[in-house]
């Protein structure tokens, strides 16, 4: 039974990768959204008005957060409208484990490439080189938390028509701590006001917390939504 639980989790994971691969654009889209938001900012603010480098950590993190939020609204919705979510709930394996596999796949396809891409945009925004490792590391620790926490509202708003915007509303207050420490870590590394380690270890603590509780909460949310 144990080995076939892993098999089921792998099947969910592979299925998500396949789906993403088939509509390849989706992955690219999250990234492109990330790129565009970071580009809009300097445009809207007017580059001559301030030192770009000062706002770079904040802008990059807000962009990452919005990109993740946007992709989350799509997380369960198609499975829901086509009935595959019904079938997932009827699996003999613990729903929490299957949900975890699904979220892992989501992160691999959005958060991970986003973190890897970020230095490129950071250069564009004149972030000092010495802050790059911290930027990538903070995103690697932070984006899975965003995915894990964000999945709960995404599950809760299923069947609530026009739930997309509702997800953002529910999710953004929950994201506040991650955003603050993520951006602060990068800012600290850039300005050497403080060592970034304190912020990064807090992010790691959030990640552990989210890993422990979010899949369970998300599974309960799905059961409630399909009732």
């Amino acid at each position: 039974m144990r080995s076939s639980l892993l098999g089921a989790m792998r099947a969910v994971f592979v299925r998500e990768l396949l789906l993403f691969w088939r509509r390849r654009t989706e992955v690219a889209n999250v990234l492109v959204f990330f790129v565009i938001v970071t580009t809009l900012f300097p445009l809207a603010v007017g580059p001559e008005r301030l030192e770009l480098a000062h706002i770079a950590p904040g802008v990059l993190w807000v962009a990452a957060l919005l990109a993740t939020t946007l992709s989350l609204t799509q997380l369960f919705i198609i499975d829901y409208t086509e009935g595959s979510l019904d079938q997932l709930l009827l699996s003999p394996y613990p729903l929490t484990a299957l949900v975890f596999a699904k979220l892992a796949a989501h992160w691999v396809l959005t958060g991970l490439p986003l973190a890897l891409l970020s230095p490129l945009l950071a250069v564009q925004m004149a972030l000092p080189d010495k802050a790059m490792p911290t930027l990538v590391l903070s995103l690697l620790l932070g984006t899975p938390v965003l995915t894990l926490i964000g999945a709960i509202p995404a599950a809760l708003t299923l069947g609530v028509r026009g739930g997309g915007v509702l997800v953002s509303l529910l999710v953004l207050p929950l994201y506040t701590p991650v955003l603050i420490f993520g951006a602060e870590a990068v800012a600290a590394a850039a300005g050497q006001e403080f060592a970034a380690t304190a912020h990064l270890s807090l992010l790691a603590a959030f990640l552990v917390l989210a890993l422990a509780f979010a899949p369970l909460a998300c599974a309960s949310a799905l059961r409630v939504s399909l009732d």
Partner: protein
Amino acid sequence: MPEAMFSVRALSCARGDRVLFGGVSFELHAGEALHIRGPNGHGKTTLLRALCGLGRPLRGDIRWRGERVRDLGDEFYAVLAYLGHLNGLRDELTAAENVWTYARIHGGADCDGKTVRAALARVGLAAAAGRPARHMSQGQKRRLALACLLVVDRPLWLLDEPFTALDVASVGALVSLIEEHLHGGGVALIVSHQAFDLPGIRAFDLEHFVRVKR
């Protein structure tokens, strides 16, 4: 007389704040099937979803081989297969991929390419194994959803309008699939407005248990 495989006693269900039906009771022994009938909106879909745990009944007692399904928990899911109004397919996956992921997620750890191909052949989709579900017609999608039931070997089938969109030949094929399932000791609940020809099936008219009209 042997114990019933699947038994339901005094089940009642509500939607929103209206009680739909009450006092639904029946028993199914190995090899038996029930054809649940009733006018639109009397709660057949609600009944089926409550039986498989997707909805929550108001009250009542559902047992599998004498044990309450609520106590069985996830184990109950290891004996049932449900086909709803919706097909539960993913448009971007091919027919074979849809069947394979279904099998794995539902515990068919030993499901391989051969099993998948065999199931697709049984529903007349052998040639379409590599075609994405998006490119299929309504009837072909319905058949693909039926193929999923064949790769996991479940004694309890709950089918909601399985004949929808099927052509005449496929209706016949599905009826003989169900017959085979019953011969193998399974039980089945079939919701359908369409009449079909399955020897020995009992009719169950939900109308008699309705509390509020429509």
